[in-house]
Every structure is written in C-alpha cells, then in structure tokens.
C-alpha cells in the first residue's frame, strides 16, 4: 500500500514539474525579449543574466517619439480595427443568411469560403500586388499603400474564419425566437438587430477580437503592399533587423509593444482562441 501511495505522490510531483517547466519554457522567450528591451547596447554584452537590474527607457521612448513609428502604430490600429469591424459585420450578415434561409447552393458557398483561408499567402503576394498596383486604380489613386487596401485584403483570411465561427453560434440561436418575433409583427431587420445581435453578442465580440489580433499580427501582405503611408508595426519590426541591424534593444522594445494588444486581449479570448483557430470545430 505504501508503494502505491508513493507512486501517486510521484505522479503529482511529475505532473507539476512538467507544467512548471512548460510554463517557464512558454514564458522565457517573451520574458527574455522584455529583458533585452530593458538594456542598453553595452549592457547586453555583459555577462548574461535573466534579471532586470536597471531599465533603459530610451529603447521605448526612442521609437515612441519617432513620428514614423507613431504612424506605423496608428496604421496598425486603424487597419486592425477597420478589418475586425468589417469582418464582424459581414460575417454577421452572411451567417444569418446561411443559417436562416435555405438558399440553393449555399452549403457549397459556405464550404468555398474556407478555401480562401487555406491558400498560402505567398502564392497570393504577386497577383494581389499586381492587382493593387496595376488594376485597381482610378487615375493616380490605387489600392497600393492604403489602409483600405489592407483592410480589404485581410478579409481573405479573417472572413472565412469569422463565417465558420459565427455559423456555429447562429445555428445555436433557436429559430423559434425569430418566428415568435415575426408573429409579433417584426420585420427581418428588426429581428436581426433586436433578437439575433443581442443573443450573438458574445460570439460577435470573440470574432471581433480574434480578427483584430490576426489583422494586427499580419506581416507578409503589409510588407509587400505598402511602401510609406500604410506601413504597419509588424513591418516596422522587420525593418529593425534589415536596416539598423544591431540595435537589438530597440527591436525588442518594438516587439514588446507590438505584442501588447494581443496580451491585453488574451485574458478575454483565452477560452475561445482554440475554438477560433479550429474554425469553430472544437468548442470548450
């Protein structure tokens, strides 16, 4: 009996050891980035230590007071919020239609949307670049290097995800509620705004936040489809490596700033992120 109890205790110790190790492993790179961002160039090459003894604020104040960097930050915010709003509204309409009407061919359309998410962005770089610079233009104005261009483009991967996620939520709202409202004389729009939207609000919020995070995090398209005006913070981060090369402290600071919004939202979406990433296939 004694050995059994020992075995059990060992199991618990092992379990905690494993998860403490995993937690450290998960946090370490991000913590280290923060540490690097707190040091000046000279301090970095001292004997390595994981402790933060002094805080070299210039790494943060430098980029933050730079007008170019401010514009990057502003663009990122503008693009991400714009895209998340657009995606959430479009997905709300689309999934309401998909869930409440039996439209011929709608199932195939629903399925087709996800293929947009599967396509490798690298394969779309060139055609989108060409379309944006050569085709979608009116006079001197083209979609290239505009926030609008990015907002539209991010729909390629955010809209399919949002539609798949919202479809499950929409299907979960009993159609009897619609019918009851309809009997009371409400029109379709009233039903959508007064019945569906309040009930789907948590789902809409999750869709919005996850789209926001994905759009904020996007790099590849932002780097190729902008040149000066619409650059986002992710491209700014990449520029640090190629242009200034050695200024690791500032790069780490910019990287830290760039992951802040995601960290803030993590608390809200922590339970839903897996649902979101599996297109609503896995729920908890």
């Amino acid at each position: 009996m004694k050995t059994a109890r020992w075995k059990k205790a060992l199991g618990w110790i092992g379990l905690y050891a494993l998860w403490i190790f995993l937690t450290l492993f998960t946090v370490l790179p991000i913590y280290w980035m923060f540490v690097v961002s707190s040091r000046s160039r000279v301090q970095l090459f001292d004997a390595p230590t994981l402790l933060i003894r002094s805080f070299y604020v210039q790494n943060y104040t430098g980029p933050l007071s730079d007008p170019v960097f401010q514009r990057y930050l502003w663009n990122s915010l503008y693009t991400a919020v714009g895209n998340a709003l657009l995606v959430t509204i479009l997905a709300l309409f689309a999934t309401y239609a998909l869930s409440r009407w039996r439209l011929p061919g709608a199932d195939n359309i629903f399925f087709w949307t996800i293929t947009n998410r599967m396509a490798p962005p690298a394969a779309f770089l060139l055609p989108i670049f060409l379309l944006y610079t050569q085709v979608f233009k009116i006079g001197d104005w083209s979609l290239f290097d505009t926030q609008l261009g990015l907002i539209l483009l991010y729909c390629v991967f955010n809209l399919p995800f949002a539609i798949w996620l919202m479809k499950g939520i929409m299907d979960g709202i009993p159609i009897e509620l619609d019918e009851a409202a309809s009997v009371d004389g409400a029109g379709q729009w009233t039903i959508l705004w007064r019945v569906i939207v309040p009930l789907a609000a948590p789902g809409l919020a999750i869709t919005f936040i996850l789209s926001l995070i994905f759009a904020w995090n996007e790099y590849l398209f932002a780097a190729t489809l902008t040149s000066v005006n619409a650059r986002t913070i992710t491209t700014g981060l990449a520029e640090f490596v190629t242009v200034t090369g050695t200024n690791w402290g500032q790069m780490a600071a910019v990287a830290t700033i760039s992951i802040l919004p995601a960290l803030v939202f993590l608390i809200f979406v922590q339970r839903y992120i897996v649902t979101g990433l599996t297109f609503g296939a896995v729920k908890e």
Partner: protein
Amino acid sequence: MTEAKPIQAPVEHKGRRGFLPIETNTFDRVFISVVIWIGASLLWMRFIEPLGLSVWICTVLCIILGVWIVKKG
C-alpha cells in the same frame, strides 16, 4: 460544454461509388482529373519532354483518363 467535431463540408454529399476508393460526385471527379492532369504535365515536362515527346501527348492521355474518371469513377 466540450464539443469536438471534424472540419468537414456540411454539404450532403450525394456521391456514388465507382472504381475510385471514395464516394465522389461529378465535381469531385472533375477536380481529381484536373489535379492529375496538372501533376502529369509537370512530370512530363521534367522527364519525358527532354526526350522529344511533346507535352500535348500527355494532355491527350490525361483528357482520355479524365473522361474515363468522370464517367466511371
């Protein structure tokens, strides 16, 4: 509440069984034919065209194969 289902087409898959190992509808079979055609053309261009046989031969073969797949697959 925990729920886990595979990602799959919600479409009612009204297919039939031919000689292909899976149930397919017409669209699936056209798709399979096109995939095979592209793959075969690429391989042909790499390995057989340098020997002097035009890639059109491959195309003809693939169209025949494609028709067979769409009809019988």
